[in-house]
């Protein structure tokens, strides 16, 4: 096949591209320029947005022996990922921008452009597997549980999965580094990136404050009594305990947690730990990564964070929403988080949590 290798400048995408070449594909390396004013040098734990990263990607392509180009996706990234991130926080939700990037950039803008240009698909360094079986090509967890990225890929439609190649899903990260070393790739020991790539300082709260303002507002308990003041509602996270600055203690001295963020009234609601517990999750904007689920309840697993636990649940689609009823209560769920459903290790689909109870 003729495929585009999305190369961030990191070790994973470099090894993925090399493996795709070895599998007999005709591979062209593409680095996505996502920042309109990229920094010259990488700093901290971000690893894809600087000129240094694009240089690393180019050198990896040289080593692998494939052509290399840079595609400017800064505008698409800003509109589809950064603005969405801000809008979600402004609405009091907690988004995951990596999912949006996979949904709107890597497996949409890039894959569509690649297909239009006569390529068959896109290869990336994500840790996930695909399998071909009676349901067609399906998306599965990687064998390395610590690196598994199937959660952030759960926004891919079956058509996008058909155009995606994930060569790293069967290998543990530690072995990818050894392999990169053996292949002579200079990025073999480059540190992993794990922060949000477009927040240069790693200080999400500060970054949000700079863009959304930091209007002071009330912190209330769940009966509506004001017990403190916050410095910008969207810089708080559901389940947060520290940094609330509350001076009035609870009657029994137990700690208080953020239960709810209300952007319209700029209010943060706090309460006891047990009030954070939910057992039913409902999500909108459902995407099926395989056959669509119907109203008949099925047993499986729900996951609500990129590296969160797989929670036993019963799930179904009520016609408009994806619903997961958890076997055990879960603490600290925010609207905007992605609910991903697994059938054993297969990704069934995902939805954006809009309500929990």
């Amino acid at each position, binding site marked *: 096949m003729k495929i585009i290798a999305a190369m961030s400048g990191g070790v994973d995408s470099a090894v993925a591209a090399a493996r795709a070449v070895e599998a007999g594909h005709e591979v062209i390396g593409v680095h996505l320029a996502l920042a309109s004013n990229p920094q010259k040098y990488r700093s901290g734990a971000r690893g894809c947005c600087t000129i240094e990263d694009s240089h690393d990607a180019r050198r990896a392509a040289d080593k692998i022996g494939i052509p290399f180009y*840079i595609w400017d996706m800064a505008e698409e990234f800003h509109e589809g990922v950064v603005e969405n991130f801000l809008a979600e926080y402004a609405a009091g939700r907690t988004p995951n921008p990596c999912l949006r990037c996979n949904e709107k950039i890597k497996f949409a803008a890039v894959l569509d452009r690649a297909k239009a240009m006569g390529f068959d698909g896109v290869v990336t360094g994500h840790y996930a597997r695909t399998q071909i079986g009676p349901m067609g090509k399906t998306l599965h967890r990687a064998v390395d549980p610590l690196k598994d990225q199937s959660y952030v890929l759960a926004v891919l439609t079956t058509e996008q999965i058909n155009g995606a190649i994930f060569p790293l899903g069967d290998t543990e990260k530690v072995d990818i580094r050894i392999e990169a070393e053996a292949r002579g790739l200079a990025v073999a020991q480059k540190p992993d990136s794990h922060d949000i790539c477009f927040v240069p300082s790693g200080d999400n709260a500060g970054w949000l404050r700079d863009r959304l303002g930091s209007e002071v507002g009330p912190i209330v308990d769940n009966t509506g009594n004001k017990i403190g003041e916050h410095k910008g509602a969207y810089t708080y996270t559901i389940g947060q305990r520290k940094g609330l600055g509350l001076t009035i203690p609870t009657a029994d001295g137990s700690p208080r947690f953020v239960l709810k963020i209300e952007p319209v009234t700029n209010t943060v609601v706090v309460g006891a730990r047990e009030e954070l517990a939910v057992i039913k999750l409902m999500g909108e904007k459902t995407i099926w990564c395989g056959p669509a689920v119907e109203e008949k309840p099925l047993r499986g697993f729900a996951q609500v964070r990129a590296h969160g636990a797989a929670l036993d649940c019963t799930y179904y689609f009520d016609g408009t929403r994806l619903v997961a009823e958890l076997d055990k209560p879960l603490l600290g769920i925010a609207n905007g988080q992605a609910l991903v459903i697994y059938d054993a290790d297969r990704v069934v689909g995902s939805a954006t949590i809009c309500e929990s109870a």
Partner: protein
Amino acid sequence: MSVYLDHAATTPIFDVAVKAMTDALTKVGNPSSLHTEGRSTRKDVEDARDLIAKAVGCLASEVIFTGSGTEADNAAIKGLFWKSGKKLIAISAIEHHAVLDPARWLVEHEGAELIEIPVNKSGELDLDFLKELVAKRGSEIALISVMHSNNETGVIQPIAEVVNIAGSIPVHTDAVQSFTKTPLSYKELGVTSMALSAHKVGGPHGIGALILQRAYEIPALLHGGGQEREIRSGTLNAPGIVAFAAAAASKIYEASKVQELRERFEAGLLTSAPSAYINGVDAKRLPGISNVTFPGTQSDSLLLLMDSEKVSCSTGAACSAGVHRPSHVLLAMGHNEVSAQSSLRFSLGANSTQADVDFALSVLPTVIERGRAANQI
């Protein structure tokens, strides 16, 4: 088959230049040394200087060897500015970054004021604008810089008229693309300074020349041993210099042959892509450059697709991150950002053939079709 159509970026080195260079590489002797070996290398350098002076129509003493065309442009722009004691710099809006960026640097660091002289839709300098500028503010102008021909479109600029309008104001011209491709005489043009580069004319990389009027001294960028009229210090790059001269004097580049090929290419291109148009087509152009806008495409997609088909061409401008940017040259010619980013430069050279042109034309329809499809996304 692979076809190289990016000769304006760099062109294959001529055999005569390789021979001259390899002979020189095996010789010992610093041209500034006083002994036998030094004098021998010095003679080679001065013979080469004579050849280049003859090729460009200047005195041998007016040739200052530099490390590149960019260095020659920098030395001229900064040197003429510092020498003048005046603050106003006038350059064309379509200058190469080797002129544009030192001029902007002088604005940021030396208090200069920069005025860009516009061009018309064909990419030719607006002489009336310049006349008015000189009439109003001539006494404030430190220097005027207008390239002899544009590197992206090949459009030749009216330098003799610029010099005429400038009067006593120093004029620099970047003649990197023009040298050996179109008639060029330093003396006849009457400019103060001119920049040349070896690797655009069949010579090696890393050698260029600043042509500067005899006894016209400007402050140096590089200080050291005082070589090259104390305007450019550094041990003379004798192998580069002799190879530059061998290429410049070779007459291997046949302008009429290259122009015929270009015409064949453009005719074929307009037949297979009727909506395409050639930038600067109504102006006098260099023989080998064809800058084409393909509406409804993005040039970086086209370049990738052409490259996949083994045809090398150029998108013009890229930023330091390697991201394609709209060309300031095409914008100055009235393009908007979208059409400027739908353009490719094809440039032919001394060894280009009819088979090259025909092969490039054969892959174009598919490339354009896929480029359009990718642009719909």
